[in-house]
C-alpha cells in the first residue's frame, strides 16, 4: 500500500536510482531506519538478524518471563507487515564486513553486497573477566537467547533454588523482579553504596533501595564479585564476594551494564573505539557505511548527551534521522534534551534533562519526597543563572513535552516550578501532590 502509493508520489529520478540498503540488526534502531526509509523511498531494504526473525521490543523481554505477555505480544508489528512493506528479512549472522568493497559475509557463507550499510547491531552484556563467568547458569539479560537460557536454568524455584545477581543497574533490578515472580530467592550484589547511585542522586537512590528491600530481595550494597564457583558439571553452584563470603546459587545473573556489539568488526576497515565511531551524520569512517543505536559512538556528541547512549529512545531517534538523511537531504543527528524512563519494581521513574548524582557547583537540587507513597521529585537548576537543568520523578507521571520545551527554551527554574502542575500526567483521580511539592521547593529556594 505504502510502496505503491509512493511510486505515484516520487519524482521519476528517484525511482531510477534505487539503492540497495542493508541493515545489520533488527532492533529498534535498525527497524526504525527501515520503516522510515520505506516511507520515504523505493530503496531495496534488507534487514539481517540472527536473534529473531521479527522485530520485538527488547525492553519487554522481562514481561515474557513473568508471564505478563507472550513473546509474540512484544512484536509491535504483525508478521505480514514486513512483506507488505517490501522489507526483506534475513535470518543470519554477519561475520565480516568489508566497507571498501561494499560486501558483508554471513555465517551461512553467503555474501551480500550493498550500496549503503547501516550497522545497528546493538549491545552485548558486560563481563569483566571474573573467574567462572562462562559457566552454565551464568548469564546476562539482553537478547531473546538470554531469555531462553533463563527459562532453561531458572524455570521455577525447584530447578533454581537461589539466584545471585551482580550489578546494580536497570537490567539487574529487572532480573531480580523477574526471578521473584517465580518465587526464586534473589541475592542482589551492588558495587555502589546505594542502588544505582552512579546515576541517581541520594534521595531517589535511597527510595529505590528501600523499595527493593521491601520486596524481600536480599540486597547487598558495597559488595563486589570475586569469583563464580562451578559444580562438577560445569554449572554455577555459587559465587564468592571480595569479602570472601560464599553465596550458593543455581543461577548467576551478570548485569553490570552493556557495551557495543562490535566484535565481528575486528579486522575490518571500519574504525571503532568502544563503539563504532560515527560523525554527526552517523556515518563511519567509510562512506555509505553508517552506525546507529547502542553500537554507535559519536565522535562529537551534542551538548548534554553522551557519546554512547544504549537506550531505546536514542536508537529510535538515530534510525529516524538516518532515514531522512539517506532519502532526502543531508541531516545531522541532533537530538533534543535528554530523557529516559524506567520502572523499578512498582515505582515508575522518568527523567528529563540532566540531574547528576553528584552535582557540581553549577548545579543545585530541589528535592521533595513522600516516603509513604514512594513519590519523589528532584529538580536541578544552575544557581548562578537560575536556569532549569532537569528533573527526576519517581511515582508521579510527568509530561515529556512540557520539560522538552522548558529545556529547549532555557527558562528559569522558577517558571518551571510555577507551572509544574501543567506537566501532570498521572491518571484521573490520582492524588495531587503539586501544592505540597511547590511549598517544599519554594522553601528550599528561599533558603538557598
Amino acid at each position: 500500500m505504502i510502496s505503491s502509493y509512493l511510486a505515484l508520489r516520487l519524482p521519476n529520478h528517484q525511482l531510477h536510482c534505487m539503492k540497495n540498503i542493508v541493515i545489520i540488526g533488527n532492533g529498534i534502531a535498525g527497524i526504525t531506519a527501515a520503516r522510515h526509509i520505506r516511507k520515504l523511498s523505493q530503496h531495496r531494504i534488507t534487514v539481517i538478524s540472527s536473534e529473531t526473525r521479527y522485530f520485538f521490543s527488547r525492553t519487554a523481554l522481562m514481561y515474557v518471563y513473568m508471564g505478563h505477555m507472550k513473546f509474540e505480544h512484544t512484536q509491535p508489528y504483525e508478521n505480514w507487515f514486513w512483506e507488505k512493506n517490501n522489507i526483506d528479512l534475513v535470518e543470519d549472522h554477519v561475520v565480516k564486513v568489508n566497507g571498501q568493497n561494499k560486501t558483508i559475509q554471513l555465517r551461512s557463507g553467503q555474501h551480500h553486497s550493498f550500496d549503503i550499510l547501516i550497522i545497528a547491531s546493538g549491545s552485548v552484556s558486560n563481563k569483566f573477566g571474573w573467574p567462572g563467568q562462562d559457566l552454565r547458569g551464568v548469564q546476562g539479560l539482553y537478547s531473546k537467547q538470554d531469555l531462553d537460557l533463563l527459562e532453561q536454568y531458572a524455570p521455577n524455584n525447584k530447578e533454581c533454588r537461589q539466584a545471585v545477581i551482580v550489578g546494580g543497574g536497570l537490567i539487574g533490578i529487572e532480573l531480580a523482579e523477574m526471578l521473584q515472580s517465580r518465587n526464586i530467592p534473589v541475592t542482589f550484589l551492588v558495587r555502589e553504596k546505594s542502588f544505582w547511585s552512579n546515576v541517581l542522586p541520594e534521595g531517589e537512590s535511597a527510595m529505590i533501595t528501600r523499595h527493593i528491600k521491601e520486596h524481600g530481595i536480599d540486597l547487598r550494597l558495597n559488595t563486589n564479585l570475586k569469583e563464580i564457583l562451578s559444580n562438577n558439571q560445569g554449572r554455577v553452584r555459587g559465587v564468592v564476594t571480595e569479602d570472601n563470603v560464599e553465596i550458593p546459587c543455581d543461577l548467576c545473573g551478570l548485569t553490570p551494564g552493556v557495551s557495543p556489539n562490535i566484535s565481528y568488526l575486528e579486522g575490518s576497515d571500519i574504525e571503532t573505539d568502544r563503539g563504532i565511531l560515527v560523525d554527526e551524520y552517523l556515518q563511519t569512517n567509510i562512506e555509505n557505511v553508517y552506525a546507529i543505536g547502542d553500537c554507535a559512538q559519536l565522535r562529537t556528541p551534542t551538548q548534554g548527551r553522551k557519546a554512547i547512549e544504549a537506550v531505546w529512545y536514542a536508537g529510535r531517534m538515530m534510525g529516524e534521522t538516518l532515514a531522512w538523511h539517506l532519502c532526502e537531504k543531508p541531516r545531522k543527528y541532533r537530538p533534543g534534551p535528554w530523557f529516559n524512563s524506567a520502572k523499578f519494581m512498582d515505582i515508575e521513574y522518568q527523567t528529563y534533562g540532566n540531574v547528576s548524582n553528584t552535582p557540581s557547583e553549577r548545579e543545585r537540587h530541589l528535592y521533595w519526597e513522600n516516603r509513604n507513597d514512594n513519590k519523589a521529585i528532584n529538580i536541578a537548576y544552575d544557581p548562578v543563572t537560575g536556569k532549569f537543568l532537569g528533573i527526576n520523578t519517581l511515582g508521579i507521571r510527568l509530561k515529556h513535552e512540557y520539560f522538552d520545551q522548558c529545556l529547549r527554551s532555557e527558562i528559569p527554574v522558577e517558571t518551571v516550578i510555577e507551572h509544574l502542575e501543567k506537566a501532570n500526567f498521572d491518571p484521573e483521580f490520582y492524588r495531587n501532590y503539586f501544592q505540597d511539592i511547590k511549598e517544599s521547593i519554594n522553601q528550599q529556594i528561599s533558603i538557598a
Partner: protein
Amino acid sequence: MKTNPSMSIASAPPSNATVLQRVWAIFGVAALGILLLAAFNVDFPNKTWWFTGSLITLTLSIILYSYEAYRHHPPGIKNNQVWQKSLTNRGLWGWLLGIGITFFYIILYFYPQFLGLNNEGENTGIIGFFDPLSQILSGNPASQWFVYGTLYTIAILAFGIKFLWKYRHNPYERIRTFSVMFFQTGFAFLIPELMARLNSDSFSLPYYDLKNIWPLNYYNFEQYRVDSFISAGDIGIALLVFGIISILVITPILTYYYGKRWYCSWVCGCGGLAETAGDPFRQLSDNSLFAWKVERWVVHSVLVFSVLMTTAVIHSYLGYDAEKYWLNKDVFLLLVAGLLTLVFALVWIFKKQELKKDARYGAIGYFSIISGLIVLHYLTGSNVFLFQAESLRSWYAFLIGAVFSGVIGTGFYPIFGNRVWCRFGCPMAAILGLQQRLFSRFRITTNGGQCISCGNCSTYCEMGIDVRAYAQKGENIVRASCVGCGICSAVCPRGVLKLENGPLEGRINSDAVLTGNDLDLLDLIKEEKTSE
C-alpha cells in the same frame, strides 16, 4: 536430554497459591456444589439456611481468596503468570470453565425447567432454592432470571472486591469499580425487585433496570411494556419518557463530555461483569487488524438489526388512524426515517473526512438499505422490513439477546476475552462508539517520546485495540470501541498513557511526532505524516 527452550516457556511455573487460598477455593467450590445439588432437586432441610449459607460462603470465599492472593504483595500491577496459568491462557481449566458457563447459559435461556422453574405450581430445584430471597425482595416467587440476577450481582460484588485489591494503588480503577458495583446492586438488582412490590391488581410496572438503555435493552419498547407503562399512570409515563430520553438526550450529552466509558465501564451491567469477574481474561481479546475489521462490520450490523427490529415492532402495534392518536404507523416511520437521515446527513457534512473508506461504504450501504426498505414498504405495501415484526423480534431475541450476549458473550470469556459481546455484538456500544469517535471530548493521550513499544497496553486492552500502535507514534487513541477502562494506562511501565476529556480541537492528531529529536526533522516528519 537437551531442553527445548521454546518448550520450557510453555511449562507452568510453580503455583503461587498459598494454603489459605486453596482452603477458600475449596469453600467456594463447596458452595457452588450446594447450589448444584439444589439444581438436582436434592431436598435440603431448613432450605432457607442452606440457601443463605451457600450464597454467603460463595461470596466470602471469593473475597477471602482474593485477599490471600494480594495481601502478600505490595500495591502495583499484578499480572505475574497470567500467560502461564491454564485458566487464563486458554488451557484445560480455561476451556472447562468456558464450557461450564456456556452450558449454564444454554440451560438458563432455553431450558429453565431444568433449573426448577414451574409456572403452574411451586418452583423446585435451584429456582425453588432462591424463592425465599425473592419473596423478601419482591414478594413473588423466584424465576430463572432472579437466580441469574442474584448470582450476577454476587459475581460483580465479590470479584469487584477482588479487583479493588488488585488495583488498590489506582484511584481511577477503584472509583470505577465502586461505580459498577453500585449500579449493579442498586439499579439492576434491588430497585427493580422493590419496584415489583408496588405492583398490585390495579397498578403494574414492567421490570425495569433504569440504567439498561435501549438498544441494549432491546425489548424496552415492546407492546406489553409500553401498554404497562401507559396504564401505570404518571410514574409509568415518566419511566417511558425516561427510556426515550436516555438514548436520545442523556446518552449523547454524557458521551460528549466523558466518552462512552461513562456507560460501558462505569454503569453498564455487561461491562460491570466484564470488568470484575471477566478481568482475569482481558488479555485473551484478539488485537489483530483482522479482528478489528470483523468487529466493525459485525457490531454495526447488529446495531442496524436492532434499529430495524425495534422499528418494525413498534410499527406493528401502532394504530393507523392519526385522528385517534397523533403517533400512528406512518408518523412513526417518517420520524424514524427523518432521524436516521438527519444523523446520516450531519455525519456526512461535518465528519466525512474522518471516515475511512470502508466506514463510508458501510454508512451509505446501511442507510440505503434502511431507507430503501421503508420506501419499498410504501410502494408495495409489504411488511415494513419484509419480515413479520414478530419474527424479527424473536430472531433478534434468540440470536442477539440470548446467544450473542449470553452464551457467547459470557460463556466464552476464558476463550475470546471478557468483552466479546461489548466489542462485536452490543448495539448500545456501537451507538456510543460512533459518537465517541466523531463527537466527544474523550481521548487517551500519549506522553511525548516515552513509549518503549513493550506491548502491555495492547495485550491488556479488553477491546483488542492495538494501543501500542498509536502510543509508539505519539498519537492519541481515539477509537470507537474504547470503553475507557483505564487498564492500558495502569499497566504502562513508562507512564505513557492518560485517559482525558479535553477540547475537540487536536483530539485526533494523526500528524503527531515523537518528542525528543531535532525540531527541524520533527517538522518534516509531521509534514510527511499529514500528506499520507
